[in-house]
């Protein structure tokens, strides 16, 4: 199914408003000391996490939810499941992600045509990333930078250095890019294009497309498994999830859904998360108001958990004990207890919650 094409990033059509740097920043690769610092800090986080596991104490993480219509972030404590505060942000915030150091939240402010950088401590917007128009989803390299931003309006994946906020490259992809997944080894970034219906595999060193894999209609989200061997892509209009073997770049399984009493046309997968141990996957089914639970080894759908209305995105707590689901039409998040597969709580948010990201500590 896949066809191979190479598209050079430096030959993109000129963008007068964007940063002048269209080429990979040579400085970027030489700053190896930064990697060391980052690796050390990652190790520190890991050690801290292990410590908490060891003591068996309940971990309190901070959950950030973007409210698409509320133009705000709702901040929730994962232990008390109480709303801590609400932070006003730019217009139509959708995709959000904490930086690897946990100090900033990157927010796709779609109607402001920018990615805002929110400082968690001061709760202020400290920078804007040059995203191009209408950013919707983003992802961050495992090393902490760069940031990969899907620009739906321009058929581009914009790659931005987080420290310098400079554009490293823009990669031309299919029509309406949306989902952005990054392989755990950081070597591959995948962007899904909603109207072209492909998962584009891009080499993070050369910024070249290496493979294009056709998937079901309107692919919205791409999630690598923790072992890096598979990529899960949700197709909203097709009502399916495609599992792609990352070695062969072939679709090895197309997962379908069947909820009694719900017409097939309303089963619209969006957010996807796979547990770190690779045993279970969770898929948000949009207007079907369910989160599907899938055996990630056999690909059998085991259960459908009833959540709020129009469920969009999902995020695990780092201990993988809780899964938060944003419900766009009922203005709340559902909290799923992962070991028991029960929806344990609904927490009211701002208007039209969309994205969710959770702190590592």
């Amino acid at each position, binding site marked *: 199914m896949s066809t191979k094409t190479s598209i050079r990033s*430096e030959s993109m059509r000129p963008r007068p408003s964007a940063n002048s740097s269209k080429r990979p920043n040579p400085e970027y690769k030489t700053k190896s000391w930064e990697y060391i610092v980052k690796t050390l800090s990652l190790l520190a986080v890991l050690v801290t996490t292990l410590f908490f596991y060891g003591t068996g104490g309940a971990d309190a993480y901070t959950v950030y939810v973007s409210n698409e219509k509320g133009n705000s972030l709702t901040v929730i404590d994962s232990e008390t499941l109480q709303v801590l505060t609400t932070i006003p942000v730019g217009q139509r915030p959708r995709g959000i992600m904490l930086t690897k150091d946990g100090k900033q939240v990157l927010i796709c402010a779609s109607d402001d045509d920018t990615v805002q950088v929110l400082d968690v401590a001061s709760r202020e917007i400290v920078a804007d990333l040059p995203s191009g128009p209408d950013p919707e989803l983003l992802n961050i390299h495992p090393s902490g930078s760069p940031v990969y931003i899907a620009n739906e309006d321009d058929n581009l994946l914009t790659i931005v250095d987080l420290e310098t906020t400079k554009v490293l490259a823009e990669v031309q992809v299919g029509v309406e890019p949306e989902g952005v997944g990054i392989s755990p080894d950081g070597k591959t970034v995948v962007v899904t294009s909603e109207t072209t*219906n*492909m998962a584009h595999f891009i080499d993070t060193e050369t910024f070249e497309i290496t493979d294009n894999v056709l998937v079901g*209609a309107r692919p919205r989200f791409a999630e690598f498994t923790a072992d890096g061997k598979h990529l899960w892509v949700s197709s909203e209009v097709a009502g399916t999830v495609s599992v792609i073997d990352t070695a062969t770049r072939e679709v090895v399984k197309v997962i379908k859904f069947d909820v009694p009493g719900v017409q097939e046309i309303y089963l619209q997968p969006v957010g996807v998360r796979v547990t770190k141990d690779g045993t279970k996957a969770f898929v948000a089914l949009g207007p079907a108001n369910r989160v599907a639970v899938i055996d990630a080894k056999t690909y059998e759908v085991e259960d459908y958990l009833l959540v709020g209305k129009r469920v969009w995105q999902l995020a695990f707590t780092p201990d993988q004990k809780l899964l938060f689901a944003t419900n766009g039409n009922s203005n709340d998040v559902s909290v799923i207890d992962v070991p028991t597969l029960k929806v344990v709580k609904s927490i009211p948010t701002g208007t039209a919650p969309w994205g969710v990201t959770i702190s590592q500590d």
Partner: protein
Amino acid sequence: MLGCLGLFLGLLPPAALAAPPTTKSEPTLVSIGYLKQEVDDAIPLSRLNVKPHDLGIAGAKIALRDNNTTGMFTNQKFTLDVERVPVGGDPVAALNRLVDSGHQFVLVDAPAPVLLALADAVKGKEVLLFNVSADDVRLRQEDCRVNVLHTAPDIAMLADALAQYLVWKKWQRWLVVSGVFPEDQAYRDAIRRAAKRFGAKIVDEREYEETPGARRSDTGQQQIQQQLPVFTQAAPAYDVLIAADQREVFGPYLPFRTWDPRPVAGTAGLKAMSWHPAHEQWGATQMQNRFQRFANRFMLPRDHQAWIAVRAIGEAASRTQSGDYGPIDAHIRGDSFELAAFKGQKVTFRKWDGQLRQPIIIAGAELPVSTSPQRGFLHEHEDVDTLGIDAPETKCKL
């Protein structure tokens, strides 16, 4: 067409053209035609409703761009050639020119009689026509043709979509005012059918006789202000006035001028349509942005209907990895066809009459109000098939 080709080549970076070491084969070519039969339209009452010169064509062109962006990854190239047939011209000759030059997929933007003549002219040939404009029910019923797929909704779908919303709103008593033209009668018939299907009651029907003359003039507003209250006076108790005025003779005069303070729907006021320039649900914002940047105007229903037709061809070519008529035609009509069209669910073609199955937008002038099918109007297979002619009632024999 050359412009489009140039644009496409412009998008291709020179490096990529030279880059692949393995000799890249010539892209598969898919030629699409657009046949527009010009018609003598009366000047609309509102200058906001003047039809753009590139109505429909701009939608097809933006879809061509979308197809060619995808084609960069599938090694396929799509072209679009437009044949404009002047009033009194020969549409069949124009279609033959397209077919003879290798166009097996042709969008037809023409009234029903022309569409039928074209379909019959290429009967038995490997040519698939897309009806992107004609809303006549008969084209999906007794006059259906196997070589025609309809991306334009017919008035039965539009009337059903509107009726569902009005019934959901509990505005179930309708005063129907229709014009004198055959298409007005056809629209009125669709409204009657919808009322019966969804439990509304037509309390009275009135006919508005056309008074020929200049449609826009310095005087006249005063007269209309006097005439329309009188015309709608002494009606039985009703909830909503439904206008059946396809040629826009009097419909836009009705809102705010009825004797009783009642909303107006139908061909004026609250309307049912396949697309609205302010529709932004289900990712439509991106479609609107990219269309407006391209065409320097708002996207109208016929643009979206043409967009769907070209995208259907592109999607089938991408899925079948083919540029040939056989696989593309079979895929579009087949069970695995699914197209994302910013309508909240996939759009597909009904097997019994070739009509595109699609949700319908209910909208006022500035904003969409709702999308039908409405909740609670259930169908054994797909709720969207509660709109228009369903399989059990079809008179179409393909």
